[in-house]
């Protein structure tokens, strides 16, 4: 079991990296990657929400959708649960853990309907993971997201000082960089575990 979870984690973080291989969650990947600091903040928030969302959507699917034969409502049902969950978590944090709220606060609403969060929920069902595996897959996929985000933010910080031709400045060079990092991550697909 432990071995299985380890393989799942490594494949979620490196081999099937959400951003760079599966191309999920591209919006925050480009939007919140100007500074390493904010990238880490966003990564933490995503990890938190994706772990929670994996569990909640798995429960919804197993105990509500499957018994009634409503699997075709997965997408809408999951969006509903995730959106409500993020709102709830935000309120809970603001009341109970203000310091964590201040650290994650601005990023939480941003990921309400992030496709990476919905993606992990749907993949859990598709791959027929159990509850524990869903949780682990959700958290490690988010860690992979964070890794990609922080790596990218680090490169972008250095790009600020680089002498870049005018027509490539800003978004163009960022997209080229993202492509190069994605190609580098393709190397992990040869990994045998």
């Amino acid at each position: 079991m432990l071995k299985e979870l380890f393989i799942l984690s490594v494949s979620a973080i490196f081999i099937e990296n959400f951003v760079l291989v599966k191309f999920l969650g591209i919006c925050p990947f480009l939007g919140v990657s100007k500074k390493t600091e904010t990238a880490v903040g966003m990564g933490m928030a995503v990890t938190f929400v994706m772990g929670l969302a994996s569990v909640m959507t798995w429960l919804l699917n197993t105990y509500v959708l499957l018994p009634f034969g409503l699997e075709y409502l997965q997408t809408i049902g999951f969006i509903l649960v995730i959106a409500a969950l993020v709102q709830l978590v935000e309120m809970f944090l603001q009341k109970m853990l203000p310091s964590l709220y201040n650290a994650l606060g601005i990023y939480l609403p941003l990921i309400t309907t992030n496709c990476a969060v919905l993606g992990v929920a749907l993949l859990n069902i598709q791959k027929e993971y159990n509850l524990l595996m869903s949780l682990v897959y959700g958290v490690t996929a988010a860690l992979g997201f964070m890794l990609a985000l922080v790596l990218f933010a680090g490169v972008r910080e250095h790009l600020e000082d680089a002498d870049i031709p005018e027509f490539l400045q800003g978004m163009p060079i960022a997209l080229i960089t993202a492509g190069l990092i994605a190609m580098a991550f393709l190397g992990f697909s040869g990994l045998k575990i």
Partner: protein
Amino acid sequence: MTILTAVLAMGGLGLLLGLALALASKYLSVGQDANIPLVTEALPGANCGACGYAGCAALAGAIVEGSAVTGACPVGGTSTAERVAEIMGVPAQPVAENVAVVMCRGTLDASKKKYIYEGLSDCEVVAGLSGGDKVCRFGCLGLGNCVRVCRFGALTVTDGVAAVDPDKCTACGICLAACPKSLIRMVPKANVYSVRCASHDKGADMKDICLVGCIACRICEKACEYGAIAVSSNIAVIDYAKCTNCGACAEKCPKKIIYCKTQGKGV
């Protein structure tokens, strides 16, 4: 039948989550004073941090909470303090308005250089090279670190010396920390005279170093009827609490380094 189950399941789920959120918003709501957004609105909104808080919203929170006074914003001055006091329903307190002053007038012609500096246009860098390119260890380096940090465009460098435009200066104090020579000081806005030299070198040495350096001759001390100016550590210092803006010291100063703010902008 299938449609009915689907509608019921999704509707029920939505209703349940909606109820949960409604309950949560009731029991988990954080009581925020209604005055906080109003006070935030009344503050200048520059988020400069001169008050010592993380930004205007943080100061507004502190004012409403009572841990900061209504006149805590040095940038907004009296008008802001009055508006904040009005929102808070307390009598307005007078605000001692300050203005930044560069304590050096050693322009390129007045102050000698000991070497020619060519390199990064940054005061910190040249200050690290044997204390700067000026013979005077205390003088303005003129590379404009203060100009770059000023958010209000109040600082300029002309003839190799920085100067503050008192009309634009909001006394936020950010430039004070940016000067490696600590030449920028806050003085009360009400006092128009200030000694524009910060050199602690002896008067006899100063004569060879800079044309507009304080030579500690003590003529100003004798000229002042109110005992508001005194020479200590080879430099004349005005006691702004005693100064009456009479201008006797400025008139008598042989080096003409006691300047009046209202005469000519930017000195």
